[in-house]
């Protein structure tokens, strides 16, 4: 996304309420810095994230989308993150076809105790997306003002 004529990657992070959102909170409590490019949307479980939400974010100009959930086996809803894993494997396998680099998306498992991991993951992901440059391929021109 262009901000004041400069490329600044915009990253949408979907975080599950029980593990990753709490992990993000812990990163905040510990004052672990991560880039302001990352904007978090809270969902009850990572399995709530419809692949459409991810595509929508890309259409509207997001440069990267990251999906964070509980570690496999630790899902608050027992099996939600397993659905996420399978659904995202399917979605990601089609991204190249849609014209988006696969590296712009990622699924990460971050527990409520892993504030440091959350911050590190966001730092690393933002850097990786910054290297890819601006996402232009899927941008819906109808959304341009």
């Amino acid at each position, binding site marked *: 996304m262009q901000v004041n004529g400069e490329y600044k990657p915009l990253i949408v992070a979907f975080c599950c309420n029980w593990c990753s959102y709490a992990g993000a909170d812990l990163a905040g409590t510990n004052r672990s810095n991560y880039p302001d490019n990352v904007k978090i949307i809270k969902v009850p479980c990572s399995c709530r994230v*419809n692949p459409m939400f991810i595509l929508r974010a890309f259409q*509207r100009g997001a440069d990267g989308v990251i999906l964070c959930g509980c570690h496999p086996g630790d899902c608050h809803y027992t099996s939600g993150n397993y659905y996420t894993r399978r659904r995202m494997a399917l979605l990601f396998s089609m991204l190249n076809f849609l014209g988006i680099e696969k590296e712009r998306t990622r699924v990460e498992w971050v527990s409520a105790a892993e504030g440091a991991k959350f911050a590190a993951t966001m730092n690393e992901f933002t850097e990786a997306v910054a290297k890819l440059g601006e996402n232009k391929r899927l941008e819906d021109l109808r959304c341009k003002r």
Partner: protein
Amino acid sequence: MQRIGVFVCWCGSNIAGTVDVQAVSEALKNEPGVVFSTNYQYMCSQAGQELIINSVKEHNLTGIVVCSCSPRMHEATFRKTAAAAGINPYMVEIANIREQCSWIHKDMEIGTEKAIILGKAAIAKVNLNAPLTPGESPVTKRALVIGGGIAGIQTALDIAEAGFPVDIVETKPTIGGKMAQIDKTFPTLDCAACILTPKMVDVAQNDKIRIFSYSEVEDVKGFVGNFDVKIKKKARYVKEDICTGCGVCTEKCPMKKVPNEFNLGMDNRRAIYIPFAQAVPKVATIDPNACNMLKSGKCGLCAKVCTAGAIDYTQKDEIIEEKYGAIVAATGFNPISMDKFDEYAYNQSKDVITSLEFERLTNAAGPTAGKLLRPSDGKHPHKIVFVQCVGSRCESCAEKGKEYCSKICCMYTAKHAMLTRDKYPDTEVYVFYIDVRTPGKAFDEFYRRAVEEYNVHYIKGMVGKISPEGDKLMVRGSDLLNNKQLTIDADLVVLAAAIEPDKSARPLATMLTASMDTNDFFTEAHPKLRPVESPTAGVFLSGACQGPKDIPETVSQASAAAAKVIGLLAKDKLTGNPCVAQANELMCNGCSSCEKVCPYGAITYVDKEFRMPNRTTAIRRVASVNPAVCQGCGACTVACPSGAMDLNGFLNKQIIAEVDAICK
């Protein structure tokens, strides 16, 4: 159209330090739906909440956005405020501008910019919020305590005291846990058995408490107030209700060489055994791996000598199903394995023992009847070296030890050293330590007594190597305060092994859907304010399963967990979570995709009559969600191919609105 009020909190300087709150409230004023926007020092304070209530009335607000700390912190507070102001509590959304913004960014401009975007996303969501009403569910007035150590015992006694029935599930044949194995307790040096066993008897005699010993939790289903639990009662081949605990069978059994796990394998028991004299329930158990009769059908001596006729070789594992309103995890701890610590020669020499083994050696009911004798030759040791932090605070050796401090070792080592010097004044005692940590009531005084009155030699430094030479153990370590290397020819070495959560905790956490930290300790709902609750509603934590603890701390936490359980069981009805799935019957085509992914079985299908064109009707199969069972994960919403399934509170259009607001 909503009439939204935006309330930006300064949180003192926590938010206002890196976010220009005035600019945020100004910028959000012109968002669609917003009719009022303001900021205040502490929105969660009474004055702040009154500000919200008054503004709702003054501006006729229908929705509220609070830009403040994490919703995990104060969402409930502001929902109550909304209810007090007369609007539906689910018309409140929180923009997390503290944990996700002011605390991670140092630049005012960046922080303000991000706070505005987060605020916009919350406003976009509230614009699509609808009032929600939670359903109610009944509470089963019975509690389950998993683990029968001092933590589980105390929790069960306190819950029973309030008049609620409690079941204790314990994997071992007796309750009592680690405390039953301990000799004396610090810092008072009273005998552990003398203070524990009366409590064990209380449990046995309490008609509100049932003990499932030699049993395991097999399966947990349901939710707060309504857990369905399957308990596997393992076959002990002795009828519990008939056995009198006389112990004749345990004396006559010919299988004499079974390592006695209660004494940590330092002596032997028979194939049929009672772990210790004060066991509760005092019932014999046959070890199926050692018993000849069970293995080959040859023997049957115990059945012959049992005058009560309690032996039953045909007994099978039994599954008990019971409903509970609350579950308390009290699975406790174990010392870590010393197998990987080759440098301490634990596996090479019998005279290198762990502290728990030392407890058994000094216990009057232990393998040596309380005489401190070397396990190898039964001689009295004259020089004992204690090594602290074996596997604790071990950052560099994460693959074999633990990074955390095990908390109890400094004190019990001081206790062991003191007791040894007291009973055997001719014995020299050395303690190697990194730091001596004694933060507890009368703890430091206790440690100083060990040094000053009992002349225990404390040496600051780590032990590098222990090597058996003849009948001595050469302990090579460093003395950091005198800056020199030491070699001590010890007769006995005691390792203060780090403690770790019991191995049963991990599978249990999976069954309970309770979260754990990286060390497999249960995570608490809030580290400071909700330390005895798991984030999973209805699951509580007692004792060392939550983190290393000594006995007084364990008992206080156990009672605190009991108080929380009593608070829950005292309610007749619980209000549920209204953020549940809902099917749009007009769009649903009855394909069953949602039913297959639902982890709770909350979705069923009903035949419904629909009006069709030309005044005809048709009966169609459509999904129906049971709101009392649905937990609101949203798996079904994505599985639904026709987009008929949606999740209240996290509607598709709401999440998309948030995405759009962020990407604008």
